[in-house]
């Protein structure tokens, strides 16, 4: 026996919905925990399969292969994937998180972005913290050439920060929240430099099963409302799912996530993405700016989110 066995509720064959959950998407955890999707879709004979995404890149991989219908990523990751040809569209926004910031070790002399000149900074290329770093440097009149970027996975970046291998770290929650608890300082924060949490669906799914897609958007709407009303319980769900200490989970949910953001993908998101788009080309991750532009103009699809109806969702 393996895992990922589909929870076939009704037994009738109304098709399947394969959707991801991720610790960086608290709403997905709430929906899975509450069983709303299953309850709602059971009557239609739809089988729901939950698949965990370990990160935006994994979610994108699964979307590209058609292994999942709906997956959650950071906004930057969604743009990058679409720029490189992945047939995805963003159908909802699940949070405006402040998951990235610049972190210095306990007792470090670094207190501002300007102090970073000539220093080494750990970051994971192609992820939100890296784009955060690029924007922060730009805002302080510096560029990536003024610092040494050490490309490390998020967890390894913190380890490198703590043993002095690097001077600063472009951190990501929840590791960053843990580090903060241990005494590290977030010396530069900026909510606007974070891209949003994007809920993406494959084009074929949107085309073939528009009603199912609508249900997904509806359930996210319901979860958003519920989470805003029950922040403590949401933190608890996150803590359990991600194995986080309750304090850390609370920090992430209460202090650094705006779950009460509008679910309709729109101008705000487009503005942030427009800023980081050129970085893709600079890094060589996307071939031309034209591809980025095309992707940005076609990525966001608000048609479902505008008619989101949380009331259509059944409690289990």
């Amino acid at each position, binding site marked *: 026996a393996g*895992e990922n066995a589909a929870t076939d509720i009704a037994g009738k064959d109304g098709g399947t919905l394969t959707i991801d959950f991720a610790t960086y998407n608290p709403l997905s955890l709430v929906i899975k925990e509450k069983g709303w999707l299953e309850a709602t879709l059971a009557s239609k004979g739809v089988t729901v399969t939950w*698949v*965990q*995404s370990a990160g935006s890149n994994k979610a994108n991989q*699964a979307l590209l292969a058609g292994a999942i219908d709906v997956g959650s990523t950071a906004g930057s990751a969604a743009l990058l994937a679409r720029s490189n040809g992945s047939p995805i569209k963003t159908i909802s926004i699940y949070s405006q998180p402040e998951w990235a910031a610049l972190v210095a070790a306990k007792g470090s002399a670094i207190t501002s972005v300007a102090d970073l000149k000539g220093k080494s900074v750990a970051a994971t290329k192609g992820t939100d913290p890296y784009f955060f770093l690029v924007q922060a440097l730009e805002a302080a009149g510096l560029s990536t050439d003024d610092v040494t970027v050490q490309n490390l996975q998020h967890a390894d970046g913190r380890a490198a920060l703590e043993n002095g291998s690097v001077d600063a770290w472009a951190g990501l929650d*929840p590791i960053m929240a*843990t*580090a903060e608890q*241990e005494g590290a300082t977030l010396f530069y924060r900026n909510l606007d430099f974070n891209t949003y949490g994007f809920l993406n669906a494959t084009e074929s799914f949107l085309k073939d099963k528009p009603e199912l897609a609508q249900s997904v958007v509806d359930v996210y709407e319901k979860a958003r409302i519920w989470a805003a009303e029950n922040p403590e319980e949401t933190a608890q769900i996150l803590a359990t799912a991600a*194995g986080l200490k309750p304090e850390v989970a609370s920090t992430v949910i209460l202090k650094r996530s705006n779950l009460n953001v509008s679910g309709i993908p729109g101008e705000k998101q487009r503005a942030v993405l427009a800023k980081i788009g050129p970085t893709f080309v600079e890094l060589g991750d996307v071939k031309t700016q034209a591809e980025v532009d095309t992707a940005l103009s076609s990525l966001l699809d608000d048609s479902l989110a505008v008619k989101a109806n949380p009331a259509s969702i059944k409690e289990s």
Partner: protein
Amino acid sequence: MAVHSGAAASTATNASPKAGSAIFARSWTRLGLGLILPVLILLAWQLSTAAWVFSPVQLPSPRAVLDAGTELIGRNELFNHVAISTQRVLIGFLIGAVLGLSLGALVGLSKAADVLLGPTIGALRAVPSLAWVPLLILWMKIGEDSKVTLIVIGAFFPVFTTVSLALRHVDKNLVEAARAFGLKGLKLLTTVQLPAVVPAIFSGLRLALAQAWLFLVAAELIASSMGLGFLLTDSQNNGRTDRLLLAIVLLAILGKATDALLGLAEKWAVRRWS
């Protein structure tokens, strides 16, 4: 020269000629001695955390790791992680070993198969586990199949390589003798060639088992939410160093335990075929 008059009854009796190394033979002693080094490592670990050489997030104390384990047991999760991973590794290992043995025998004995398949297999051998992940997702989607397949790939190569190389060096005199008595093909393989490479087969199997555990981590990057490999990656992503170390220690223990079972099988096989 003089023959001793009247050979007396035996006096000096040394019944066990190899008494010197007998101390290492008793299995409990063996186990105890084998634990010395792990215990020393544990001690060094405990001391280095107690002396704050490393901070608790860098390197949590053994105690903290144990607590993380108890917590997961309390949540009824640890057993599932262990069970699903063990299942994946064992199934993958079995399939991979059988494939490795068959193809290894083919390539080791048939010049034609070697020339045709050798280069391709040699090239595939260097494809990293992580690189297989996107390809497997593409071809097999994200179910249990793709995870087990990745482990099969990992287990295949050590068996294939050791068996195919060893078969080329089987004592030519014995093979010739057997062929002179009309043995050929499968019969020759099972009567002479495979028994002659039993030690090599087992070193291949032990490496394959180890590699199966290594590939497990990559396999559990394929959309899983259970298993020790998942626990490892997930804890790393979430900064839970204590759970990370727990996963490492469990993988090491399970790796060693399954290896020890294979070691028993090896002992039996070597006694049987040498």
